[in-house]
């Protein structure tokens, strides 16, 4: 697992405020753009004045470099083109990795849901600086980037600022597809939806969760009364304005019993959605605290998963199964099986060593590997 943030072991920061920098090893960049870059020092050899910051993973003992940050070894994956945030305190965050096909930008930790299995537990603090950073980040992201994601918290809590962000993304990264994770409730407001639609982004998908066809159950999972109706209304509005919607269902003990009915509900009421993602549970955040209420071994629900996929695909709905291991699903799910989204998060356990399907298998989130995974992991031979 990669360490996405860390603190400099030692630094000499004259930065007055946090800044975003593109990592580079190239000295001799034109003077006019140098300040956007953090020069990755190869000892002292490539040192040159004028860069926004200097970083290294082994200590470079030169005293007169301003804004020099000596970073922990775990972060040495950072390379040419990656984008980092440096705080005057010496805290470093990796915000954008050029070799990752799915970069997700956290916009806020605030949320109007409080999901039982939230991997990013909401905090009720003003973190609008995250939005400022996201806006700034857009200016640094290369134009060839295929996709970026925005997540939270609940990004739409920003209201019009959220619209501005997507609009800026469209203007500045005209060829980049966008995924937004949202609970969709903000779109129950037609005016907001019409503003969003007016951006006219060529490919911006809203990933919206529906956890049950039973409103009480959905509201329970997200811990918010009235959530179900607003989310459904939001989806209807988005579709009325021809926006792209993906429905996301996390499978756990509270959603499994009505998973098939929920898929039937989607098929009969929301047939027009662009994609449905059925996802395994990630062992992050609240999930661990609520494990008793949430954990069910994927092996135990594999027939239900097959049925759910069958219902959706039968209606012609684009369906994907994420975050599952090949040895705990039925073969009929294979056409919809996706190796996990993040190409650097997945890991494997001992049993996998002798497995013939390892290269096709998504494996585990590192959190699952550490915390809880199926008792039925078995090499496929």
């Amino acid at each position: 697992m990669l360490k996405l943030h860390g603190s400099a072991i030692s630094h000499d920061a004259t930065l007055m405020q946090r800044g975003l920098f593109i990592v580079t090893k190239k000295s001799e960049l034109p003077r006019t753009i140098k300040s956007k870059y953090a020069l990755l020092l190869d000892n002292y050899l490539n040192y040159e004045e004028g860069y926004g910051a200097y970083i290294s993973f082994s200590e470079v003992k030169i005293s007169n470099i301003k804004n020099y940050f000596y970073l922990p070894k775990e972060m040495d994956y950072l390379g040419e083109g990656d984008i980092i945030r440096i705080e005057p305190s010496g805290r470093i965050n990796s915000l954008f990795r050029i070799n990752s096909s799915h970069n997700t930008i956290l916009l806020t930790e605030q949320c109007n849901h409080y999901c039982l299995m939230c991997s990013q537990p909401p905090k009720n603090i003003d973190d609008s600086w995250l939005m400022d950073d996201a806006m700034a980040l857009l200016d640094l992201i290369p134009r060839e980037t295929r996709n970026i994601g925005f997540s939270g918290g609940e990004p739409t809590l920003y209201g019009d600022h959220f619209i501005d962000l997507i609009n800026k993304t469209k203007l500045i990264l005209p060829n980049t597809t966008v995924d937004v994770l949202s609970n969709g409730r903000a779109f129950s407001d037609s005016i907001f939806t019409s503003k969003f639609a007016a951006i006219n982004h060529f490919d911006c998908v809203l990933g919206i969760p529906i956890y049950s066809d039973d409103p009480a159950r959905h509201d329970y999972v997200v811990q918010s009364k009235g959530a179900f109706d607003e989310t459904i209304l939001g989806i209807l509005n988005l579709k009325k304005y021809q926006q792209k919607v993906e429905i996301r269902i996390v499978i756990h003990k509270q959603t499994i019993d009505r998973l098939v009915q929920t898929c039937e509900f989607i098929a009969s009421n929301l047939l027009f959605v662009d994609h449905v993602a059925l996802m395994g549970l990630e062992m992050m955040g609240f999930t661990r605290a609520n494990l008793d209420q949430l954990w069910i071994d994927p092996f135990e629900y594999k027939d239900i998963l097959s049925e759910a996929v069958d219902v959706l695909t039968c209606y012609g709905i684009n369906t994907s199964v994420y975050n599952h291991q090949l040895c705990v699903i039925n073969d009929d799910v294979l056409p919809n099986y996706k190796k996990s989204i993040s190409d650097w998060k997945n890991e494997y356990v001992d049993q996998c060593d002798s497995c013939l399907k390892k290269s096709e298998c998504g494996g585990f989130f590192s959190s699952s590997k550490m915390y809880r995974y199926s008792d039925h992991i078995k090499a496929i031979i």
Partner: protein
Amino acid sequence: MEANLIFDANIYSIDAIKKACYRNINRFAVNISKEEDTINCNITFKNTVTESQIKIYLDDFMKEVLDQDLRESIKKETEGVRNLILAHTFSKTGLIKDE
């Protein structure tokens, strides 16, 4: 063959009984009359109908009256919302609140 059934007019509506009769039109003919508190059904069967069939027919008929009564309750309660939904279906805008 004939049979007589008496229903409490305070409980069942003439309409429900009529509808139940209609649904059994292929089995027998009914003459309905109403007094103060009763609705009387005078039922005539074809000659070819057997005793045991008659029993079944009458049984089914009474169940049908109960069902019609339920249907009446449903209709009474849902007529308004049904018209509302139909009206919205055939109008340009949806039911979405902030439009």
